[in-house]
């Protein structure tokens, strides 16, 4: 091992690496990509396109609800649009965008060159894209699902939802779920085995901790939704099984239990990565290590566990036994403790730090404001008596938008403004970023705060209209105006990204003077990540420069090689040759997708999926000379 500076002066090493990690040109090359930055960015861009679509759907709903007995949308269309809005936001935006951020950032933050399973990563992306295309192909051929994003049986059953919309919905979930499982598996192995030497688990950056917890949650939660949506619902609909259809002796509450066993952790799957982002942004912009690192990590892990114990609070109105309800009240409130601890740690960090008033930090303050309010209304909803009044009303709509937009979208936008130089190599316009923040913040509160009041005054959710006598008109109008302010914020954000990408000032490797490893490499990061894999001696290697001059040597640069380290202490274990570009993940995804698309219409689609998928997997795993793995 030698000093970093000496080795940095070796341009031919960079050339060699660049050759080893290069993507093939042309469209065939484009679909064979297996590098994490390219795939991560595809996840993020695709997810943002779905965010845009979901946002347009939201605007249409707000226009319809702006006044009583409005006729902008008919009831059938309204029901379709709120279903597709919820499904898009949960399955096609929120989870994938977090996965994309993880796929992009985790290898850079832990000092390696790629995720542990690059081809699985590519497969996951293509499957996700196929799922999104399925839903929107249905939307544009007028077979939109219309039973809500949790599709309660029997409304979603064969008797009350004829047509193919609900089948499309149920199978679309399979796609996003496979994709989420792929990313979860590869991120867990990446984080546990590919960390830079010396990066013991207690030096892992907060964002990586968050992705680790999220990935484990995905592995436990996603199979539940597969049971609910595919095994119960889709089979009841397509081959006449009797799992959850009461007309056939099935139990509609069984569906709710299994769905929410996934559905509640899903919320934390979405916002735990955002908590990690918040920690990263706060420590960078307050110029100090986050206070209470162990407390933050333990809270994240505890969040992950407790999240699986609260699903029944979605079902308080179904009339479950008292003793069970009391347990779930207590469990639901417990999540406020672990979330509270994290808020306190961040407040302490902000309090003692020297704050840099960047756009990224603006979003963090917006996040604190909105998320704390959403958390406190969550405490209200955990109380059964209050929930029995507020459940399924606009109060709940307000609550979960406060938690999900405040808890996820604001940190995500903050993260985008924070990591933008690493993504693009250029600085994002701070002034436009702050304008974006204020538009989103004001628009958000204007839209969703009145909904609390509407809900308490009796407005149920998922109504396409309301009679004028109820007096709900003015508050609804205000919410609609707010929705357009949010839309303006969105346009401002897109404009800023497009402008800064092209005309922004060139970024240094570490423009914010942050402490974690991703800032030690060039902006934008090269496909191989680091010229020399770093050796880490502290939690913030770039802030403790004198400790972190060591680098890893001895890896071959002419092929995609990374260092595998031990799980706890990150001691070097062995070298691993990662596979290069491959078209097979794409072909496998296409094969599975054809079969799964067809399974919406007939059960035999599963045989097609199996056959075509297997062909893909054979190609994927076709043995090759171990030393000959080249790009």
């Amino acid at each position, binding site marked *: 091992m030698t000093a970093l500076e000496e080795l940095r002066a070796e341009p031919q090493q960079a050339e060699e690496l660049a050759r080893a990690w290069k993507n093939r040109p042309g469209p065939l090359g484009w679909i064979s990509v297996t590098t994490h930055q390219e795939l991560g960015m595809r996840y993020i861009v695709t997810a943002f396109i779905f965010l845009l679509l979901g946002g347009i759907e939201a605007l249409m709903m707000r226009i319809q609800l702006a006044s009583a*007995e409005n006729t902008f949308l008919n*009831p*059938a269309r309204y*029901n379709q649009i709120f279903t597709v809005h919820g499904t898009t936001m949960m399955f096609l935006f929120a989870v994938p965008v977090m996965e994309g951020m993880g796929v992009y950032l985790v290898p850079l933050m832990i000092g390696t060159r790629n995720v542990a399973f690059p081809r699985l990563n590519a497969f996951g992306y293509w499957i996700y894209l196929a799922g999104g295309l399925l839903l929107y192909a249905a939307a544009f051929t007028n077979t939109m699902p219309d*039973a*809500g994003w949790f599709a*309660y049986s*029997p*409304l979603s059953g064969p*008797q*009350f939802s004829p047509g193919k919309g609900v089948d499309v919905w149920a199978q679309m979930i399979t796609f996003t779920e496979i994709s989420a499982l792929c990313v979860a598996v590869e991120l867990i192995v990446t984080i546990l085995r590919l960390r830079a030497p010396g990066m013991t688990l207690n030096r892992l950056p907060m964002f990586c901790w968050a992705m680790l917890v999220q990935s484990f949650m995905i592995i436990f939660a996603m199979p539940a939704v597969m049971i609910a949506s595919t095994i119960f619902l889709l089979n009841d609909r397509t081959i006449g099984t009797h799992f959850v259809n009461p007309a056939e002796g099935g139990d*509609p509450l069984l569906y709710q239990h299994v769905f929410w066993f996934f559905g509640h952790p899903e919320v934390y799957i979405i916002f735990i990565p955002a908590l990690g982002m918040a920690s990263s942004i706060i420590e960078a912009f*307050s*110029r100090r290590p986050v*206070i209470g690192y162990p407390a933050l990590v333990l809270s994240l892990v505890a969040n992950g566990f407790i999240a699986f114990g609260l699903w029944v609070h979605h079902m308080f*109105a179904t009339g479950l036994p*008292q003793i069970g*309800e*009391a347990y779930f*009240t207590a469990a639901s*409130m417990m999540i406020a403790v672990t979330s*509270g601890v994290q*808020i*306190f*740690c961040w*407040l*302490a960090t*902000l*309090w*003692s*730090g020297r*704050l840099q008033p960047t756009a990224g930090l603006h979003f963090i303050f917006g996040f*604190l*404001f909105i998320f*704390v*309010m959403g958390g406190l209304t969550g*405490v*209200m909803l*955990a*109380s*059964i*008596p*209050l929930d*029995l*009044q507020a459940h*399924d*009303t606009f109060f709940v709509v307000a609550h979960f938008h406060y938690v999900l937009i405040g808890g996820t979208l604001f940190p995500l936008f903050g993260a985008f403004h924070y990591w933008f130089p690493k993504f693009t190599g250029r600085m994002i316009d701070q002034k436009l970023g702050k304008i974006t923040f204020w538009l989103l913040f004001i628009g958000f509160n204007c839209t969703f705060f009145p909904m609390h*009041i509407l809900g*308490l005054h*009796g407005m*149920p959710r998922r*109504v*396409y*209209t309301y*009679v004028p*006598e*109820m007096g709900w*008109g*003015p508050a609804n109008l*205000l919410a609609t105006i707010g929705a357009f302010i949010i839309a303006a914020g969105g346009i401002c954000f897109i404009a800023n990204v497009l402008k800064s990408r092209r005309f922004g000032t060139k970024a240094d490797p570490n423009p914010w003077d942050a402490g974690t490893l991703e800032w030690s490499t060039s902006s934008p990061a090269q496909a191989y990540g680091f010229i020399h894999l770093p050796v880490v001696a502290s939690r913030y290697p770039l802030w403790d420069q004198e400790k972190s001059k060591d680098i890893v040597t001895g890896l071959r640069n002419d092929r995609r090689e990374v260092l595998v380290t031990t799980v706890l202490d990150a001691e070097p274990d062995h070298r691993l040759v990662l596979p290069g570009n491959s078209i097979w993940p794409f072909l496998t995804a296409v094969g599975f997708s054809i079969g799964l698309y067809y399974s919406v219409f007939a059960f035999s689609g599963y045989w097609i999926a199996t056959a075509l998928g297997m062909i893909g997997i054979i190609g994927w795993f076709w043995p090759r000379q171990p030393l000959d793995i080249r790009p």
Partner: protein
Amino acid sequence: MTWGRMPSCAPVANRRWPGESGTRPKLATCATMLFSLASAFGQQSSLAPGGTHASQIKSLGVFFFWLLGIIFLIVIAIAVASIFQRGQSTQDEAAQRRLKTAIAGASVLTILILFGLVVVSVGVGKEISAPGGRGNELVVEVTGNQWWWFVRYLNDDPTRIVVTANELHIPVGRPVLIRGLSNDVIHSFWVPGLQGKRDLIPSRVTTQWIETNEPGRYRGQCAEFCGLQHAHMALWTVAEPESQFQQWIGTQLRPGAAPSDDLQQRGQEVFLSHACVLCHSIQGTTANGQVGPDLTHFGSRLSIAAGTLPNNKGNLAGWIADPQNIKPGTRMATVPLDPTDMQPLLEYLESLQ
């Protein structure tokens, strides 16, 4: 793709509910209305409770609101104050220790507060779900249908079972047990002024107690998404003194009023000779359909189409002539009627007091 409009609710001349005096709120009062939790909102508010259970829930909610509101303000105040802090050196051990103590203290306080909230809310939860029967309870069966409410007053004496729709009359001061059922999908019975909601689930029976000491009208609405016309599935609950309630029960037990003049006589003939009888029944006539609401005492009801329109002849004419226009997707069929038949039919139906 067809984004065309299905006909939706047409403007209807008379939206005044029986016994209602107020006018619709003007835009100028919006801002004040939005933030005043007063009765400017209709009769469907959990913040204007009339029932004993809803009052308890509201008190609990007010307690939560102030406690959590203060916590919110403190947290935000600290966050804002941190902007104006100059920052400390990371070497300042004493300052770090103070902050860590503060975090620990706040965490312990959070646990204590939440523990208190659990105890309080489980206590209230027990009270609002406790069986309210004191031997004098009334048992009412409410069955959800797409998109109306079937209501049946149970009685040990089968001749005293009362059947009605989209309207619930309850005596003041007497506990009422709602037995919830559903004929198709999951609905949720919710009258915010009286009690929290309870789902009506096919293949199950759910129960809920309501009780009020204040006579009045409380509007309720289906709270679980139940399909196309979930938005127009409301019901009125009328709480009245025991004597009036008994009088109402007495009326409801009688068969439908016989036509009292030629026009009504003609109306009855129209009703009985058209498709109406396939779905609706009128006791005392041959109309015995079981699919739609029972119309034996239709004229005495407050609303048409499950709370969608106030019950008067004009609205009823619009509803019968084109139900799909008022409630798109409703199961009520459009029955072609000779224009001269409409007036007698309206007279007859409104005479069914």
